[in-house]
């Protein structure tokens, strides 16, 4: 079990965004909006599985960039 680490998720998403050539300014904005939306959804929950968290983040990311959402959702399915 681990705590929800917003900084780590933000760092991962920024790396993914840079790798797929999303401008850093716009990436920062929609990553912030995504995480705010995710935090609102998790407001009433004390525990959540990693898979559910990934699913929620990917669903929110999809509103801004489908490629980034796809990579985030499927990064464990490449190998």
């Amino acid at each position, binding site marked *: 079990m681990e705590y929800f680490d917003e900084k780590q998720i933000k760092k991962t998403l920024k790396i993914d965004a840079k790798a*797929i*050539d999303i401008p850093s300014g716009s990436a920062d904005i929609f990553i912030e909006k995504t995480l705010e939306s995710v935090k609102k959804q998790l407001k009433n929950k004390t525990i959540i599985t990693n898979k559910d968290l990934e699913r929620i983040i990917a669903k929110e990311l999809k509103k801004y960039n489908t490629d980034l959402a796809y990579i985030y959702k499927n990064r464990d399915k490449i*190998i």
Partner: protein
Amino acid sequence: MLIITSMKLIPGVFANLYHYASGKYSAKKAGNLCLYFILGVELLPALLFVTSNFLLYILSYTSLDITSDIILWSTAGLLIALGIAFFCFYFRHDKGTKLFISRKTALSFRKKASLVETNSDAFVLGLISGIPELLFTFPLYLITLIEITKSFVLPIPCSMILILFILAIISPLFFLYVYFRAGNNLADFLRLREKNKTFFRFFVTSLYFLFALLIILLKVIF
């Protein structure tokens, strides 16, 4: 050779390495890491050919004749079995292109690819990436070495053929690197792999069967 170049683990690790390296470092450094990864990948077939050659050398001192019928039919049977195993087990039966290796190993490779910082890290990652697939590829190296050394119709020296073979094995990685540099990203690569998963399964299985048939036909004709 086509079978070995069609395997998915090394390109998958390479794609992960390129993705994380492009996200963390400059394009030049990401390119260098990819190059050292490819050099690491290239070392493995060279080592496997040396090992196969050593095994054949030891076998030459025994009474075992590697061109005997029983060995050739066993080899054909092994290739057919590998083809069936590839079709049934190479890809896991769920979404994505998850491979047969344990999840812990797969996640370990992804994590290692994301943490690569130096050229030596990339080199070692390239070297170890091909190891889990040896189940499907090592027999091919052994059989290829036997066929090359026993073949009598080639005007090119055996050593040159082996060098060309080793260089050809890493060609998919160069194509993949060009594919990424042309503007495609990891999402495009993943979608392409998933779309062609069934085709690759049938294609590689057919290649195993064809190889087995070729060995049988060569024995029957010659």
